[in-house]
């Protein structure tokens, strides 16, 4: 590599309590280079970048940037300002934008002295407009962020970094919220900037885009760097093995007899101010023994669909029926009673009460059940026995059934929710992003359980923004775009990608 070195990470280590998120990781980056940081969810990619950017203070190790005059500069740990001064820019997975401010204000935030009595925006605006021209990343500068689409927000984030003359740009899972087509245009824009000398680290767990866009690949697994290779020489299978470790095969797909409809949505419409939460004339039929995959870029109405099936949102029009019985005014309780099991998207926020115990979280959906209470009094002993059985059966690991649920890891919280839902042998299972943020083992476990339920005869609605997951699990695929559901008669990635973007294949 004859390009000059620009950045060195040496021995970076970060612990969160007992968990070692990053274990002595070394990394280098050269000018005008695209380095892909590849790894499964939970491999420690984001943590590493947060240390680079000063959001986390490392427990050991340092970050060194080579200044333009060639002198090395070690960054003081835990200071975002130092990273900004060293002209490192980061685009987080969760955008760090204030929604009540305009795009322009967000970009200028922190660039002017706070003691200044007025703002000097004309020169800054000219500079940003120049950057938009050069890169092709166009965003409406005078709109409030709250009114922008996800793609536009991402462009604002990148412009923010470029405005601060970033020499190094870090992108954390930039395509997770984009359609394949949007992702391609983003890569085109980035390539333009890289050719002008920008250096990029981009974090991803999607092999195909890493291979298409990067110059060099570093692979992380369980917080350790397990390999580094030049993209041009890389072999796809070799990288996959590095990333995943020992192969955990997906469960065999057995043919299943598809039975009667267990969940029917007829012309369901939910009108909300925000299109992200709206549904427009959605019909869906799920039969016993099949998994219906709902693909789509998040924010296209999936959460509204999930809320309707969960009983949290009442449709403005249209109806919903479970096992042939129409639910006139669905409520969460009504859905549970109708044997609809629900695995929520945000498992920490909606799935468990973190400060209550594991045992309590296991019975929270069945407070009326006779083995949980008699005349309103909780049967503590029975509840504890029940919890022990479930924790064992579903391999929920943690400090015990009397510990607060918040102390469990994400994967174990998900197993807890699975245990709670599946033990009731539901007719319908709504699984909303069930493997997001889980490590490979836990994700495989979730997939196995869903397949098992399918075999038992449950109808599963699987909402996922990970197209690979949908392709591997679903018997039938529907695509969600702009509040509408479209049946995909194909399993072809590109064709489904077009549907996700709202274009007929």
């Amino acid at each position: 590599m004859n390009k000059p070195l620009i950045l060195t990470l040496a021995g970076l280590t970060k612990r969160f309590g007992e968990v070692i998120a990053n274990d002595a990781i070394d990394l280098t980056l050269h000018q005008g280079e695209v380095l892909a940081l590849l790894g499964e969810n939970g491999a420690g990619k984001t943590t590493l970048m947060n240390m680079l950017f000063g959001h986390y203070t490392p427990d050991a190790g340092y970050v060194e940037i080579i200044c333009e005059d060639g002198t090395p500069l070690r960054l003081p740990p835990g200071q975002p300002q130092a990273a900004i001064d060293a002209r490192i820019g980061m685009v987080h997975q969760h955008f760090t934008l204030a929604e009540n401010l305009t795009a322009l204000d967000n970009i200028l935030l922190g660039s002017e002295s706070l003691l200044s009595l007025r703002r000097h925006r004309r020169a800054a605006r000219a500079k940003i407009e120049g950057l938009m021209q050069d890169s092709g990343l166009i965003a409406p500068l005078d709109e409030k962020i709250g009114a922008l689409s996800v793609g536009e927000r991402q462009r604002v984030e990148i412009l923010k970094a470029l405005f601060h003359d970033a020499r190094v740009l870090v992108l954390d899972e930039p395509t997770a919220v984009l359609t394949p087509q949007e992702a391609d245009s983003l890569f085109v824009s980035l390539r333009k900037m890289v050719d002008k000398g920008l250096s990029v680290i981009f974090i991803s767990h999607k092999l195909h885009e890493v291979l298409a866009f990067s110059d060099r690949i570093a692979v992380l697994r369980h917080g350790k760097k397990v390999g580094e290779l030049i993209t041009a020489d890389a072999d796809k299978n070799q990288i996959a093995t590095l990333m995943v470790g020992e192969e955990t095969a997906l469960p065999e797909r057995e043919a299943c007899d598809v039975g009667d409809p267990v969940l029917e949505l007829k012309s369901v419409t939910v009108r909300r101010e925000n299109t992200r939460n709206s549904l427009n004339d959605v019909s869906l039929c799920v039969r016993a023994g099949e998994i219906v995959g709902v693909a789509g870029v998040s924010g296209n109405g999936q959460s509204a669909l999930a809320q309707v099936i969960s009983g949290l949102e009442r449709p403005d029009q249209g109806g919903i029926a479970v096992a042939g019985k129409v639910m006139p005014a669905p409520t969460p309780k009504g859905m549970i009673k109708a044997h609809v099991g629900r695995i929520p998207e945000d498992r920490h926020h909606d799935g468990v009460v973190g400060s209550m115990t594991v045992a309590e979280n296991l019975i929270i959906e069945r407070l009326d059940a006779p083995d949980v209470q008699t005349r309103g009094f909780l049967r503590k002993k029975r509840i504890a026995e029940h919890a022990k059985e479930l924790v064992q059966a579903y391999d929920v690991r943690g400090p015990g059934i009397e510990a607060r649920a918040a102390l469990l890891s994400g994967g174990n919280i998900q197993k807890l929710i699975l245990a709670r839902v599946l033990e009731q042998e539901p007719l319908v299972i709504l699984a909303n992003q069930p493997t997001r943020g889980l490590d490979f083992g836990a994700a495989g476990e979730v997939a196995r359980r869903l397949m098992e339920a399918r075999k038992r005869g449950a109808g599963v609605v699987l909402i996922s923004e990970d197209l690979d997951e949908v392709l591997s699990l679903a018997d039938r695929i529907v695509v969600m775009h702009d509040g509408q559901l479209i049946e995909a008669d194909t399993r072809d990635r590109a064709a489904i990608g077009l549907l996700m973007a709202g274009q007929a294949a």
Partner: protein
Amino acid sequence: MVIEPRGNISRGVQMAIPVIAALVALGLAALPLAFAGAPVLEAYKQMFIGVFGSVFSFTEMLTRATPLIFTGLAAALAFKARLWNIGAEGQLYLGAMGAVAVGSGLIDGPAVLMIPLVMIAGAAAGAAGMLGPAILKTRFGADEVVTSLLLNFIILIFVQMMLEGPLKDPMSMGWPQSEPILDNAALPQLIPRMRIHMGLIVALVAAVIAQIALTKTTWGFKIRAVGENAAAARHAGINVNRTLLGVACISGALAGLAGVSEVAGLKGYLTTDLSPGYGYSGIVVAMLAGLSPMGVVIAALYVASVFVGADSMSRAMGVSSYLADLVVSMSLLSVLIGSFFARYRIRFAGKAGASQ
């Protein structure tokens, strides 16, 4: 400097924090005492004697603790569901008014009938006082902190109006006070020639029931779930609004009982200075108790001791009895700070990263 959450908090630490906080607040009282020019140690001694010096003074403390147990329970239950009932002061007056309306001659009967009737009337009035803000919250999304606070002022003025109007005692020679509670509607004294009355027993029973309800019933389970994570509770099929309205009623009823206890157990008639802020002190009691009903009893005894001790010290040494309010408010802030150190650990990192 990094703030890290701790794992499970041990029971010992949980119990120790309010005790330490109370002691710190008492210790800090030395500053205002010194500022007032009083001999500090002597002042502490007077406070101690004021509570534990005689049977009478001890029963006075218990008498003072009675309404605090009620208002403390009112706050603890509501806060447990994260319903900010700051209106216990107003609900207390509503309860007292309910008791007076029923118990001062409207109807008459034997004590076994009249006492429960007076209590039910007061509890119902108090419940109605918190049901309003709770409905405004669940129906319209109006912040119950502000509505329940403002309602305190409205209710107090309403009490004034009633005392100058329908509830006015014609024999009071122009003083704004209600007709006295009938003898067979009054809560009986527990010990002859002491002011301690049956209200204390009722308060203790209420605390025990609240403790059982909160920890051993599905209703308590729902309250805790709603308070800790309303979104997850709703998702799991718990009717959040109904739970909140239920808690609001119980919380208001408890605060109302504080008013019944004061007016029917102690004062005998209603005036606008029935409560020296028991509703607000109840918040302190609840926080010191870590929102545990049995803890409320102990915390109420502490707060009552501070009030009675400071009163007695004030009479003996001429230091303003507002010292008590100072100590009570400092206890609240201390226990709040204490809860931080229970939940988080502060680690001074940074050196480790830089030295390598």
